[in-house]
């Protein structure tokens, strides 16, 4: 009788162990709902432009009814580090704030921006577009940079993987074209040319 009970206990224990192992196996396969962590790291595009030399342009003596070239160029250095997937082109714009008064003598006589011209002698590599001959500052703003009728795009360079990072130097020559203009009263005519780079 005692022996019979012992066998029954053994069978019961064996059955319990088997049942417990099955539950433990079921618990090992349970997972929670997946949670998503979004990661973002943005590298902002960089674009800088500076005037290396020629920030002061002086014409010692104007001659009426002809072209007057400024003796030294404005040397412009442009540097960028851009994402070609987000940037189509780099543009450098030169403009006068008030096109009708690019230069003024302060006594009521003004020289409009249509009389001021710029020509770019580009560095390497050659830009996609640039004014190869003297061109008036009569263009409109580009990418919100410049003034309507008082601007000139100095160059445009399309951005690709090959040139997404670059430093370049260009020479801007300026000219005061008084051909067929009214004779100017003597005096000193002063103004400010703004230059800025913008991506599109």
């Amino acid at each position, binding site marked *: 009788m005692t022996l019979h009970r012992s066998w029954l206990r053994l069978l019961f224990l064996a059955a319990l162990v088997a049942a417990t192992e099955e539950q433990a196996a079921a618990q090992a396969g349970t997972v929670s709902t997946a949670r998503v962590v979004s990661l973002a790291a943005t590298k902002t595009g960089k674009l800088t432009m500076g005037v290396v030399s020629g920030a002061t*342009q002086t014409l010692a003596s104007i001659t009426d009814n002809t072209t007057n070239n400024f003796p030294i160029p404005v040397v412009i250095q442009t540097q960028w580090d851009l994402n070609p997937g987000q940037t189509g082109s780099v543009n450098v714009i030169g403009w006068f704030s008030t096109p009708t008064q690019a230069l003024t003598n302060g006594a009521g006589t003004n020289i409009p921006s249509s009389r001021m011209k710029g020509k770019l002698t580009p560095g390497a590599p050659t830009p996609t577009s640039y004014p190869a001959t003297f061109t008036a500052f009569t263009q409109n703003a580009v990418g919100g940079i410049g003034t309507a009728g008082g601007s000139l795009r100095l160059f445009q360079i399309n951005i690709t993987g090959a040139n997404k990072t670059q430093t370049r130097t260009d020479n801007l020559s300026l000219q005061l074209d008084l051909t067929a203009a009214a004779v100017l009263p*003597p005096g000193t005519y002063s103004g400010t040319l703004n230059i*800025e780079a913008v991506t599109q």
Partner: protein
Amino acid sequence: MELRSIGGTPSRAVGWSMLPFRAAPLLAVALVLGPAARAQTSVTSAARSVAISATKVASVGITLPAGGSLTLPGSLSSGVNDFSPLPFTTSWSVDPAQTARVSVVAYFEVPARALANGGAAIPTSAVLGRVPGGSPRSFAPFTQASLTASGTEAGTAGGSLMLVSEPIGVDNAIGERTDQLQMRIDLTGTPALPAGTYAGTLNLVAITQ
């Protein structure tokens, strides 16, 4: 298979043929706006300034439309001898802020010998001039002093005569005028001169003041 059990609905590739017809307009809008969205990532540099300065220098000039030679018709007499009028044109382009007037001065280099014939000479005191539209309007001898402006001297002491004094303002900063210079040799009361040709040079110069 394990990922599917954890993450829920697996992604599926969607073919064009599977898109509902109503989604076509939305897709078209997305395609149009795609490049615009890319262009919005505009980057600008700081603006730089180039100071520009251009100066027009003031200028004045005199021309002689009828030439620069005057010859007394007939013989030099002991009284008044008038030459034919000589036109001269004065032009200027000046800064009215810095120039009050443009003047023309005529002068002989050596007042004692305005015109000479070897050792004999006619002094400037016997040579007169007038400019009906300028100054002097009546004949006056070339015996005025020189004119000096900003350290520049025009004329000679005792041998000059101012012919024009044009006030300058904003309205005539650039201009020109033509006047008639009438010359006279007045030998009244002077000792008789030896016979011969008496020649001399009258200088005309314009100066800003």
